[in-house]
């Protein structure tokens, strides 16, 4: 399998004198793989995610995603890289309150320069696939938590990214809704979407990913496997793959 993410001896310090948020991380993720990054609060999970997404730069080491040295890209280049290659899902959804659902979903496509009509069609396709098309003209404040996270997932997928990063995607949801979102991510991965899921919930990691990496004090304490197994193989009774990824 092709390597999608390669982290080589990556260290990130926010304060020169302090303990690094992550230190000496070595990690390889293959394309199509679904991995869970686990660990207690303050273990460096979100920092690792930010480094992979290019939202932060490492203090040392190399971060390569989809063949690009993300840590060496300029701010403009990393922004372009991010919108083309990476979709991000946040714990608190981070939808823009003053845009409708469809406008939120269209936003990354419009930032990438996609024509409004094409972006709208792609957003409609995703909203339908995620079963929230009826809410397309609603503002986020009127949606339930599960609906908001579905919108956020649609937004993350709109540019057909090679990699989906999910930072505690069920952390702000009740367990039933969290289960739905988990299954949705599972289906996405089954249809070929690479996924890095940050969570401190071992059950979620076990059910919906094929590999888990545990961080403790900013270092990899455990890596469960080689990542070749897809998460769908692990879950009994999984739904057929979503038809949102061509």
């Amino acid at each position, binding site marked *: 399998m092709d390597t999608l993410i390669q982290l080589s001896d990556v260290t990130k310090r926010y304060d020169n004198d302090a303990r690094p948020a992550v230190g000496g991380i070595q990690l390889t993720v293959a394309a199509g793989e679904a991995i869970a990054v686990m660990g207690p609060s303050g273990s460096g999970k*979100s*920092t690792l995610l*930010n480094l992979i*997404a290019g*939202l*932060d*730069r490492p203090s040392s080491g190399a971060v390569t995603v989809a063949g690009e040295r993300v840590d060496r890209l300029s*701010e*403009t280049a990393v*922004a*372009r890289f*991010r*919108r*083309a290659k990476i979709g*991000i899902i*946040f*714990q*608190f959804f*981070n939808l*823009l*309150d*003053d*845009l*409708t659902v469809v*406008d939120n979903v*269209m*936003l*990354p496509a*419009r*930032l*990438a320069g996609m024509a*409004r009509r094409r972006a709208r069609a792609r957003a409609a396709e995703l909203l339908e696939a995620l079963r929230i098309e009826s809410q397309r003209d609603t*503002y*986020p*404040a009127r949606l339930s938590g599960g609906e908001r996270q579905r919108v956020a997932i649609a*937004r993350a997928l709109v*540019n057909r990214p090679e990699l989906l990063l999910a930072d505690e995607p069920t952390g702000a949801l009740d367990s039933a809704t969290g289960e739905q979102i988990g299954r949705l991510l599972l289906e996405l991965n089954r249809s070929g979407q690479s996924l890095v899921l940050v969570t401190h919930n071992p059950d979620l990691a076990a059910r919906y990913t094929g590999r888990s990496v545990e961080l403790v004090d900013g270092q990899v304490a455990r890596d469960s496997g080689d990542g070749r197994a897809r998460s769908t193989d692990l879950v009994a009774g999984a739904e057929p793959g979503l038809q949102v990824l061509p």
Partner: protein
Amino acid sequence: MRPGSVGRAVRGGIARRRVQVIVISLVLMVSTAASVLALALVVDSNGPFDKAFAAQHGADVTAAFNSVKTTDTQLSGTRKIAQVTAAAGPFPQVTTTLQIPIEVQGSGAADLTLPQLTIVGRASPGGPVDDVTLQEGHWPTGPGQIALNSNPQNDNLPPNLMLGQHVVATGIPGKPRLTIVGIANSVTNTADGWVVPAEISRLTASASPVGEQMLYRFASAGSAAAIRADVADVARALPAGALTAADSYLSTKAAEAVGIAPLTPFVIAFGIIGLVMSVMIVINVITGAVVAGYHRVGVLKSIGFTPGQVMAAYTAQVMIPAVAGCLGGLVVGNLLSGVLLERTANLYQVGGLGVPGWVNLAVPVAMLAVVGIAVLIPAARAGRMSAAQAITAGRAPRQGGGYAAHRILGRLGLPQPVTIGLAAPFARPARTFVTLVAVLLGAAAVTFAVGLGASLQRVVTGLNLSKTDQVQVSLPMPQGSGGPGGSGLPIRTDRPGPGPSGHFKLPKLPSAEAAQHAAIAAITRQPGTLHFVAEADEEVSMAGLSHQVQVTAYQGSADWLGYDMISGHWYNGSGQVDVPTYFLTATGKTVGDSVTFTYEGKQLTARIVGEVFDNVNNGMSMITGTQTLADGGLTEAQPNQYDIQVRPGASAAAYAQALQQDLGPLYGVNQTGGSGGLPLILSLLALLTLLLATIAGLGVLNTVALQTRERVHDLAVFKALGMTPRQTIAMVVCWVAGTGLIAGLVAVPVGIALQHLLVPVMGASAGTAIPAVILSVYGPADVAVLALAGAVIAVVGALAPAGWAAAARPGVALRTE
């Protein structure tokens, strides 16, 4: 909680909000400086005159009487008129012509003839009215001595007259010689010179009557109407025809204030605009800072701060930079005022000019009061909040707003960062309104300043006739002639000339007729000549005016000179004159009235057919054709210069040089132009406009910085979704660009209205009405460019925080959720 905790909270707050601290300081500094400057100019525009007038017990009215028709006893009796509070006189007076003899090597003596002067016989400079200040030498104590008036508004005397010089009274048998023994100053210009009373009879031609002068102060003399009523009371108390002239101190005061008074209206306007803008921006800064600090308020309360301490902490966070800004503004305002007032500090020798102490006290107190009120309301509200309420208010994400704006703008097909940016102001309508007003005022100031600058340029062009009257030729005047036309040769009385023995070498001068013929021939020979006209300048006297009026008479068609007409029309026949506004004001005449004037003993009546924009002789002048003078029998008036317009494309400088070579050194050939004090006014205008635009820009910077701080999380999300730095800058700039554009569009008519309002007021301060051509300065292209001023201010003000927003890494903001 100890008091030191409040201090630490204040220090912490200031350190956390450096942008707001800097904006508050700068805005207060700029607006304080503008207000100090405005008030200082208002107070001091008449300061030198008022100080001198008070110190010298200046005369409200200087009255001249015909001694044939009244007696000294009757004149002394006018002191008892109810309205008269003080009087001096009667003093004998005479109007005479003085010449300064100049020793000329090889050509005998040459005389510089001064305009007709009013000489008054006074035993001493002091008295209850017009307590003259003696600046050099001593007061005349015997025959053959004269003290001359050095008042800066007295242009009858040349500068640099020196003690010990001799002057000769011409036209009087024996040509009595006087020695200058004193240089004095009468604030109300009651005379050009003073001699002992007995000397007046020696200076009076045998057939001429001796006049008498009385100086009055009245109980009510604040306006021209009050003065006219006072003078009428005096006239009624005397035989008919006894009062021959009466000059009000108001005309001298107006002439003295002409240099600075016209500046005052626009400086006041700029001061008011600056003040309103400051209030708007300070309110925006403070409310934004306090609201943004609610979370911190909650934290402070949860650790034991009382409501009073919270209020004190927030008030101090604002008042400390505000006080610093005010102090800086005071220094800047005093420095600027000093530069301007130094130019107007004149020679009255009654003390210098400076910013009055009360201005230095009142301005910062007023500014800080405004800031204090602005900060107390939100600070009190923050103080009253419960800790939990404040923490919640500070943390809760702002609910979205401006949905409709997003929908509508989204359909325009603009790039997404632009539509998101343009829709943002609708989410914060109150803040947007305050920002809009600040930018509007800044842009209106720019529009006004551009218009005012153009108007002032046209004023200078109009007064100099520099579009048409590009080259002037002064004729050499024969020996013995003088006055305003006698300036053909550069005669100096104050220092030796370049000759080997320290004397001027004057070649033999041609006759007046020969000089005219030579000039006309030379001008006609020049291929670059388009138009030319001969000009004769003479001084005449008018009944009721103690000072001379200048008559400019053109020989032939002169309408091409293009004087700006205020009303009426350019003279087109004999017996018609055009006059400036100040002439009409001073004489109480209107267009259509007749005026009678006297020259060399001959009287002539002419009809005023037009009000013209002109300031020759401080506006006491008449313009007519030489035919008017000739038909009245005033054949003595001879052309003293030629006014020339060169052909389009020809160089006026090259033309003047060629003509000078042709005519030789006896003729003065000059290129006209020159802007007088315009550079100073334009510099002041540019400075004040820059200050106001800076305030507006700082207001924008503050708004955007505040918004960037509030939306730091949204910005991070945008970046996480792939927004590039350039797109981020575009979006942030668009937060205020639309507001700026609208403000700019509204500001153009506001600025034009301000220009149309204030330019006539400035003209009135200088004693003239303003022709329409000076007001109508905005062309369509100007309006189009000026309409963008608001957008430019907004974009420039937003660029720095937009850059900060673009450079900020999103990881930190996202990590804090």
